[in-house]
């Protein structure tokens, strides 16, 4: 059974129980959730809201997309009836926050990219159950860091 479109994929994930807790596998297959682009403020800082919904043990969005490298501010809501936490990638050191039931917190990250990074809730096996998400940084390296050669073909 294969999928041929985004709609098919969502339907098949749901049908096989891959997008929820304790249906197909025990947990939820990571990054099967929503994708959202961070909004950019005038000063170039990017921002986004991140939630953990009750009994989903998953991030919403599961994939955060930054249009370019730089600073990202995240407002985090734990709407779950259990305690979780978050460990985010950031230049300098990773950022950690403890999230008791029904709590709200903040994180400020710096990511240079391009590329993608993982974040998670490193308690128990939240990471395996579904609380592992990705932050994608789009864009290119600065022009001065590019090779002095003609444009090359890409995949």
């Amino acid at each position, binding site marked *: 059974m294969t999928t041929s479109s985004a709609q098919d994929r969502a339907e098949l994930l749901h049908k096989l129980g891959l997008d929820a807790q304790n249906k197909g596998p025990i947990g939820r297959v990571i990054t099967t959730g929503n994708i959202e682009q961070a909004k950019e403020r005038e000063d170039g800082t990017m921002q986004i809201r991140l939630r953990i919904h009750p009994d989903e043990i998953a991030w919403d969005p599961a994939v955060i997309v930054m249009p370019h490298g730089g600073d990202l501010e995240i407002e985090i809501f734990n709407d779950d009836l259990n305690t979780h936490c978050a460990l985010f990638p950031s230049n300098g050191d*990773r950022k950690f926050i403890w999230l008791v039931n*029904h709590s709200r*917190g903040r994180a400020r990250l710096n990511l*240079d990219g*391009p590329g993608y990074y993982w974040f998670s809730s490193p308690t128990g096996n939240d990471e395996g159950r579904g609380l592992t998400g990705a932050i994608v940084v789009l864009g290119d390296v600065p022009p001065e*860091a590019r*090779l002095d050669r003609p444009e090359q073909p890409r995949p």
Partner: protein
Amino acid sequence: MTVEYVDAGEAIDQGDLSGKHGTAPPVVENVTYERILDARSEPQNWLTYYGAYNGQRFSPLDQINTENVKGIGPAWIFQSGTSGMIAGASTYAFEASPLVVDGVMFVSGWDGWVWALDAKTGTEIWRYKHATPFDISLCCGNVNRGVAVAKGKVFSVTPNAHVIALDATTGKKIWDKTYGDVRAGESATVAPLIVKNMVVVGSSGGEFGVRGHLDAFDLDSGEHVWRCYMVPKPGEPGSETWPADGQAWARGGANCWLTGTFDPETNLLYIGTGNPAPDFDGEVREGDNLYTDSIVAVDADSGQIRWHYQCTPHDVWDYDSIAECILFESGGRKLLGHFDKNGYFFVVDRTNGELVQITPFVDRIDWGNITRDGKVTPARYPDKEGEPVHFYPGPAGAKEWTHAAYSPETELFYVPIQDVGATATRRRREFKESIPYWGAGVQVDIEDMTGYVSAFDANGEEKWRWRNNLPMCASVLATAGGLVFAGTPSGEFNALDARTGELLWQFQCGSGHHSSPTTYSVDGRQYVVVPVGWGGWAEGFLPGMLGAGHGSALIAFALPEESPTR
């Protein structure tokens, strides 16, 4: 009824929850170019990657010596481990060469880690973690070979090809420059080298069809000073060694992924360059392919190439010449010794690149031969599409990047040797940026392999050999205590008699060695420190140990504090 959220506050540095954080004494403030020039006059310290600009990896410390080495044991162990998902989680390795300045150790790990430790206790003082993209191109594992220190700063490269300067007292970032293109398949693994007021770094990515380069940045500001490409553009000197048509040169490789050495009298940096790309398909890049697989002398002020010696012209075996260029004097000449992946020991005059002698240093070489006067004749190589060809040494070479040492006391070179072959089958493919560009399927032998540490004089005469049942894949260290330290892939850390090769001491470290041990002293006590953490490009240099356990420990050895022999 609406229930107010509990305020969880703002996320904090994970290091604040380590129980170990602080500020290092300002020991690096007065580390200057002049001090590094005379680094071996400070035997208590290990100020630069090789211990000195000459690349000898020799320490004048002799408290631990042939008489008492059997009494050394672990003084402390530092471990980091990993949390979360990291790039190359199955291939990370602890490859660094720890630096020590007046009781403070600076060492890098995999995945963008840098630590400052108390060199006497192993206690973490500060940490820096560069966020590393999960999806960067890493040919040979998530690794880093060390840091540099000067003028109050610690310098490191990151897997995504940045060079960063950290405050040596706090670990906070001072400046950060991107010098490679991760979308082109570039990365960085090299330990930076301080030269004058510059930090010199090279690029990795030779398996992705990039154009290798060496860069210099101003220590204070991070401003870019010069870039030296190791593959010439059309019309530049050396371009005649590439096809006139097409863009083979633009994807030609020659990365400088290992730290160079430096002679202040010639004002030359001695850099080994990497393989051409594609590694095994030479037909798409006819010619000698300069300056791949070469010893290249680069003027430290201008970044211009002054001379070169190519060890493997038109390489089709992946025989990078990145290995260290050890500077020494013999017969009144200023010489350079280089143990190449192709299995030959080259000695050249470092003032002009003139060949002095060539000798094979591994038992099995059948890819071709090089005569005493430097004539290269290939014999076995992947030539026909789809036809497997077996050759010795394999693509990791008779000695990979892990370093030899030279003792000015014994006037011997000590060399970790890998005697293992491989089969390559040419498989042509189109070039696409960021996709591996090997031009072959390659399988390294998992049987009929061996290793040894050999001692050679400057004439290439082997004086002794210590044999191991597995290839030797870690740097060796020579000391004035008459010792050579050498780690094995199976975890043993050995002390050998520098004059005879006799095994005098051994300790099982729990994971294989693929790093560069160093030595230093604090309050009059000598330590030998070794990063231990098997991994990296094991499928290339020792696939027979691909299933061995990973580790991530830094272990310091010393004599007992109350030893009557001290």
